[in-house]
């Protein structure tokens, strides 16, 4: 643990604290009636301290609270700075958008309360340097997001919220158990003292699953499309842009690559990442709501970042290129996806069939092209960084990746085509205001240029501009666009749709049906058992008691009878024994 250089000083510590505390304090101020009216515009500014912290605070600034929840440590390191930068930018633009979007919503203070707490949690976990602080901030963010997801209070929102909270609780339990086993068997809770993927396999599995739920790993992702669709647009933007990355950051912090690399776990993440990349595209192509298409796109893109993480694990701690690749891709994805989500709200708020709508949709195409990785976009920079990271891999893997990466780019472009198709008929529930429009334009411009401006992106940007790599990034996009156009034209000509439209949440539907069937089976069995019990005890119970609870209740009443008589009997016997055995 390096002591903080004296040149950093107390203002750095204050910036760290303020970055995390500003959103939380703003949220709590909503409890004071006179301040409540001001919460929307205060929320718009709440992300500023974090942005300033990311830009100005020197690396290595640390603040330690030895009395806070079992010793907490927060600091700004290189990965943290990158994450904080794009996270705070996205939250900033989304909160400005939200102050306009929610202006006429009568439950807006409840929304902002949840929004601000989630913001505070998001910033907190980026700056956390020990496992428990990370867990606390992660929990704050996850539970506060529930309020964002069920905000509309309609049936879809309630269902999505239920799925979400179940997976959040399960994820929390996994993470808690993993940390408890790790700490109980003598492991350190400090990130900087970790050396390699935690060796006990149970712990690593629990961590991978727990953070995988948040990151949208396949099989654990079923909450994502539902939640990102039903949440209000600014909330969807931050859910998909920055909160999903908390799972990724969790993997990075808790499972750092050891010195020699961990090929087994690296392979697991590589494979899982690619499955997610293609699965997201496959299911996303059949969706009808533009936000659901974007949600599946997030699953797919997070799959690619997972591939980069897998590369890092495979190769070992010498793989700085892999880390750079992850950070650049996360940066690019957060801003581009944020711009796309906010764009849905903007386009939906413009009257259909007007010229303005066409122009705005075309502008949105910039972000879509970036996501697909077209040449000269931030997407291309990110993908170039990914290709650079691939270099230290063994040949078999490299060849496979060299085939799969362009294929996923084709898929993403086709998915973007589907997105614009669904956007044509989409209307938001109110027309777009100036605040929303301006904040969206700002985010769009930033998403197109930011990666070129930050120093970390320079090497990848230079590599991208070489002629050979321009062609490499162009042909998948062109192919994908071609596929999408061909499908669209075929649909128009024949009037038939070749798209298979799976319901949003895909695997959730068979799981819900299965659990319903299991529940009915259990109820039938316990009903039969209860009937047997009833005839045995010859007790008539009136009315329709519910099966399982009724059975438990009759067991418990039975306990009461047996307990008292049993205890009395035991007491009498023992007193006799005592008397008899008195010396």
């Amino acid at each position, binding site marked *: 643990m390096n002591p903080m250089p004296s040149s950093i000083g107390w203002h750095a510590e204050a910036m760290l604290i303020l970055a995390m505390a500003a959103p939380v304090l703003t949220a709590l101020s909503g409890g004071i009636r006179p301040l409540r009216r001001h919460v929307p515009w205060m929320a718009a500014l709440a992300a500023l301290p974090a942005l300033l912290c990311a830009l100005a605070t020197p690396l290595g600034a640390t603040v330690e609270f030895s009395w806070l929840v079992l010793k907490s440590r927060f600091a700004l390191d290189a990965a943290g700075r990158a994450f904080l930068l794009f996270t705070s930018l996205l939250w900033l633009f989304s909160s400005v958008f939200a102050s306009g979007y929610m202006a006429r919503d009568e439950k807006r203070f409840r929304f902002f309360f949840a929004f601000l707490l989630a913001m505070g949690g998001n910033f907190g976990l980026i700056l956390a340097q020990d496992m428990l602080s990370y867990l606390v901030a992660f929990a704050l963010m996850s*539970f506060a997001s529930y309020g964002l997801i069920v905000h509309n209070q309609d049936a879809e929102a309630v269902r999505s919220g239920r799925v979400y909270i179940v997976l959040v609780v399960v994820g929390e339990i996994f993470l808690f158990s993993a940390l408890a086993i790790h700490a109980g068997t003598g492991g350190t809770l400090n990130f900087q003292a970790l050396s390699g993927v935690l060796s006990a396999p149970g712990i690593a599995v629990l961590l991978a699953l727990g953070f995988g739920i948040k990151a949208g790993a396949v099989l654990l992702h079923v909450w994502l499309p539902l939640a990102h669709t039903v949440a209000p647009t600014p909330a969807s933007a931050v859910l998909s842009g920055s909160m999903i990355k908390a799972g990724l950051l969790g993997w990075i912090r808790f499972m750092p690559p050891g010195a020699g690399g961990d090929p087994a776990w690296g392979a697991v993440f590589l494979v899982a990442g690619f499955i997610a990349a293609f699965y997201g595209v496959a299911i996303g192509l059949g969706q009808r709501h533009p936000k659901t298409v974007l949600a599946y796109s997030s699953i797919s893109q997070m799959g690619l970042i997972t591939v980069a993480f897998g590369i890092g694990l495979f190769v070992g701690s010498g793989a700085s290129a892999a880390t750079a690749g992850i950070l650049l891709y996360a940066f690019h994805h957060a801003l581009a996806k944020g711009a796309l989500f906010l764009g849905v709200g903007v386009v939906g708020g413009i009257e259909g069939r007007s010229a303005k709508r066409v122009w705005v949709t075309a502008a949105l195409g910039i972000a879509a092209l970036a996501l697909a990785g077209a040449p000269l976009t931030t997407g291309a920079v990110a993908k170039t960084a990914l290709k650079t990271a691939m270099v230290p891999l063994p040949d078999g893997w490299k060849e496979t990746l060299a085939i799969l990466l362009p294929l996923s780019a084709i898929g993403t472009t086709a998915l973007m085509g589907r997105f614009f198709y669904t956007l044509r008929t989409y209307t938001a529930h109110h027309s777009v205001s100036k605040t929303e429009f301006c904040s969206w334009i700002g985010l769009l411009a930033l998403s197109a240029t930011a990666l070129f401006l930050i120093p970390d992106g320079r090497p990848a940007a230079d590599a991208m501009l070489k002629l050979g790599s321009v062609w490499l990034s162009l042909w998948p996009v062109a192919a994908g666009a071609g596929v999408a156009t061909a499908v669209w034209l075929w649909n128009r000509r024949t009037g038939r749709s070749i798209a298979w439209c799976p319901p949003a949440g895909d695997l959730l539907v068979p799981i819900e049906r299965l659990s319903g069937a299991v529940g009915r089976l259990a109820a039938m069995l316990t009903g039969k058992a209860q009937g047997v019990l009833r005839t045995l005890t010859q007790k008539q119970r009136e009315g329709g008691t*519910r099966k399982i609870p009724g059975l438990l209740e009759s067991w418990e009443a039975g306990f009461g009878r047996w307990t008292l008589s049993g205890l009395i009997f035991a007491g009498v016997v023992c007193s006799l024994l005592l008397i008899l055995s008195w010396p």
Partner: protein
Amino acid sequence: MDVVSWMPFWILMSSVVPGVVIFFLSDRHRGLRTALNMGGVTLKLILIGFMIAGLVKDQTYLFRLPLLPGMDLVLHADTMSVLIVALSGVLWFVTTLYAIAYLEDSPQPRSRFFGFFSLCVSATIGIALSGNLITFLIFYELLTLSTYPLVVHRGTPNSLRAGKIYIAYTLTGGASLLIGVAWLRSIVGPLEFVQGGILSTWPAEYHNTFRAIFFFLIAGLGVKAAIVPFHGWLPNAMVAPAPVSALLHAVAVVKAGAFGIVRVVYDVFGIEFAARLDLLAPMAAVAAATIIWGSVRALSQDNLKKRLAFSTVSQVSYITLGAGILGPIATIGGVVHLVHQGLMKITLFFCAGNLVETIGVHRVSEMNGVGRRMPWTMAAFTVGALGMIGVPPIAGFVSKWYLATGSAAAGADWVIVVLGVSSLLNAMYFLPILHRAWFREPDGKWAREDAHRGLETHWMLLLPPVLTALLSLLAGLLADAPFSPLEWARRIAQQEYLP
């Protein structure tokens, strides 16, 4: 007779004297009764403060009253008793405040209520400060007797039935405890509580006897601690008024049982001796079964107080579970949960009482949109409920963390599975309540409307839950601060495991 070292006795008297006096007041003397109540509890808190300050300076506190030859009534103050006494003092303060407002419009005699209320708290303090098993037994039985009138306070057929069930269970439990104590006394002699236990030096031929005695002691204490299958009295006792449910049946009575188990395991048998006798594993298993059973039963309850009662059954067994795992970390988890569970559970019961008193809501299914009508109450409820589930940084997380880490250190990974399932079940019956309160519209007008100037309810009903919710949050957030409950628990564990 040293006035200072008799501090435990003065603390006890600070609630006995007002209690006895209140019995003789008629109901009209509201002001005098309130003054006696608040005066007594304030005096108690001051004296507890003095005692803690003295303990830090290594002052010894001992009160000894010979009852029979060889059997003394001993009140002393060691680290463990101070923890429980401080908790009881603080919670009695807020509950008195709450009860005064809650029973404003009650038709039954209030002097009777507050008289027995004070006696009940005296019994709890006596249990906390007891220095040997005989004293503990005496105050334990006094607790039973003084809580019965509170359970049947309303006098309705339901209350009387609940009281009958309560007495049946607790007297039988008390009989089992008596058998255990008498048997042990006849073999061992004076049963003073000593850290590390007093039985470890006894030769092997006594071990089977000790095992039988352990069974009787734990069974007797387990009735009050609501261990399955002895927990049947607790859900029924929820017909009592909310202040009674809050302090006594979620905190004091149930805590007395759990505290007794902790005393027996650590200060009579000694944890290492108990482990040698293979007594810990069965106890931990029974505790785990209770944890799961209580939560499963809570799932199907619509009545809010019944749901909270089953939740208590589940949560108090965390303490027994902590006592059943060998190792200082698990000990810390179990002991600190005595405090944390008390704070969180009393918050939940206060909120349930507020809902009944102000808007006539008894059932979870009636709670749609309550958050809009009573935001501060439901905010406190949210903090308590999230703490029960184990969401950091509220206090419940800290106890669960230590229990889980301690089990991992002791190689008992199955406990972590039990804790995980328990958290999941807790989420399944607490989160829907929070959803209903904050994210649904009310079904219509409330069953009752008791409007108060500006505030959502009477300030004396609002302040206690908000205060205890804040304390639960701080107990977790500042867990590593110098005077947190966790620090006290660490000190207790340190003294227990020293050679």
